[in-house]
């Protein structure tokens, strides 16, 4: 790569803003989080005591934490599978009709731009117990909908709102992936006597697997972090902690319960988890390079 060689100072001037921001708002807090995880702060914030791994053992011994972990996993699987299955179905249909594929893309892409919190509020209105339209339909089917009381329904609400928003992201990628599959492959399969159903499962689906894996990681990350707004605006972790995910619990313990040590320990555990997810993604990227 050609470079400017004689300029000693210029690169540092160029890097200065980024390095400063990253140092102050990333490394400092990240280090603080790690440090804090090994201390217990007294409730008045006057001093703190070093407790080694006590915060971690306390977190890892609490049933609440495992409940939140279970909820997070269930929520993530629900969002990822729901959003991906729906997106794949629609992308396959849009890809096969040719005429209008672009129009469908334009018409389906916009929910991606909607804030997670706004998505939550829109769905909350549709499912509002007294006057929601969909809750009324469900009532007619004999389902008594009230997500303010029923934990399972609260979970269903946040999953639906998240799927609604995330679907368009997946749709864009699946459609791009489908359009990248050489037509000749499908034509060869058709000549070999495979019908549309078989063509999809034996050719299209395997060729989409890199895209699917990438989206699985992206959807999990989305479900983990970005859905905080959806949850907080609609159920606030309730009822009775039924929608309290790991990230929501970090927030609650830190900003509502003022248990800073525990909140920090949970942050560190989350960082490890995200690190693992990122590693997975890098492994995948490496593999993709070999294709």
């Amino acid at each position, binding site marked *: 790569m*050609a470079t*400017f060689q004689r300029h000693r100072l210029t690169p540092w001037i160029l*890097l200065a803003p980024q390095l400063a921001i990253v140092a102050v708002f990333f490394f400092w807090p990240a280090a603080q989080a790690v440090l804090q995880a090994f201390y217990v702060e007294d409730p008045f914030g006057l001093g703190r005591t070093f407790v080694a791994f006590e915060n971690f053992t306390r977190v890892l011994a609490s049933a609440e934490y495992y409940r939140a972990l279970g909820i997070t996993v269930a929520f993530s699987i629900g969002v990822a599978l729901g959003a991906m299955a729906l997106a794949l179905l629609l992308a396959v249909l849009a890809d096969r009709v040719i005429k209008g594929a672009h129009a469908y893309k334009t018409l389906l892409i916009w929910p991606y731009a909607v804030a997670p919190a706004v998505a939550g509020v829109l769905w909350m209105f549709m499912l509002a117990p007294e*006057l929601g339209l969909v809750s009324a339909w469900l009532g007619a089917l004999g389902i008594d909908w009230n997500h303010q009381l029923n934990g399972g329904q609260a979970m269903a609400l946040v999953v639906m709102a998240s799927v609604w928003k995330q679907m368009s992201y997946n749709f864009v990628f699946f459609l791009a992936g489908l359009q990248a599959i050489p037509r000749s492959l499908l034509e060869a399969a058709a000549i070999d006597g495979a019908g549309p159903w078989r063509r999809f499962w034996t050719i299209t689906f395997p060729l989409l697997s890199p895209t699917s894996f990438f989206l699985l990681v992206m959807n999990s990350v989305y479900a983990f972090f970005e859905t905080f707004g959806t949850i907080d605006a609609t159920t606030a972790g309730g009822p009775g902690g039924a929608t309290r995910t790991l990230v929501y619990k970090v927030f609650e313990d830190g900003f509502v319960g003022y248990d800073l040590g525990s909140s920090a320990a949970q*942050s560190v555990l989350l960082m490890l988890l995200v690190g693992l997810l990122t590693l997975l993604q890098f492994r995948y990227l490496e593999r993709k390079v070999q294709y």
Partner: protein
Amino acid sequence: MRYRRPGLDIASHAVLILALLAFCLPVWLAFTAATHDQASLYTSTAPLWFGDQGLGNFRSVLSEPVARLGTDVTRLLLNSTVMALGIACGKIIIAILAAYAIVFFRFPLRRLCFWLIFITLMLPVEVRIMPTYKIAADLNLLNSYAGLILPLIASATATFLFRQFYLTVPPELLEAARVDGAGPWRFLKDILLPLSKTNIAALFVIMFLYGWNQYLWPLLITTESDYMTIVVSLKRLLSSADNLVPWQAVMATALLAMLPPVAVIVLMQRYFVKGLVDAEK
């Protein structure tokens, strides 16, 4: 050639159109609800057709201080716009400069700088929220635009994408520019930035959405309604301990909250799709 089956085509269109309608339903209902008054809303289930208020609810949330917020939605929109533009422009500017240094210069500690910047890709703000909040408080950034913007710029997604793009620029272009008497700043201004136009547009879309749709950080850092963003305000509007939820105002606000990002994505769809697909590489 594609072994067409007309029946299947019609079925495909039918499913797609059904899905489209289903996807639009939440927004449609929000729109119809926003044209009713509160009394008519609470007489039955949510209406599928417009009420008699016209755009009155929009006008009132935009101009009058909304209950429980102490400020009008115009102010909230302004705050959100400042935040989203600040994050988008801030990220793009520092990313252009940092990626430029990393790709086009050789200097000691270059590798270390590279890793220091790109490790931030791994940890979203939600994970280090407590200490970041404390630092923002220590730096006197609570209830300020700087506090809303700066901490969210601290991720290197944009830097990473610019680096990827710069690496595809033929090295001879830089050499030709040096022979033509262009120094680092002139090369950046005359050659590199004009070549990055599409990438800048794509990143602008993605970063604008990212900034506009932030929730947790603005929720923490703004306690005064003067700096609250419109996305965060919805929760305040909803949390009614004593009163009925004023759905017509909530829905009007929600629609106003989604209008700018949806407009950006629809108008700049081409760049957005390109930006997304590039981000995957």
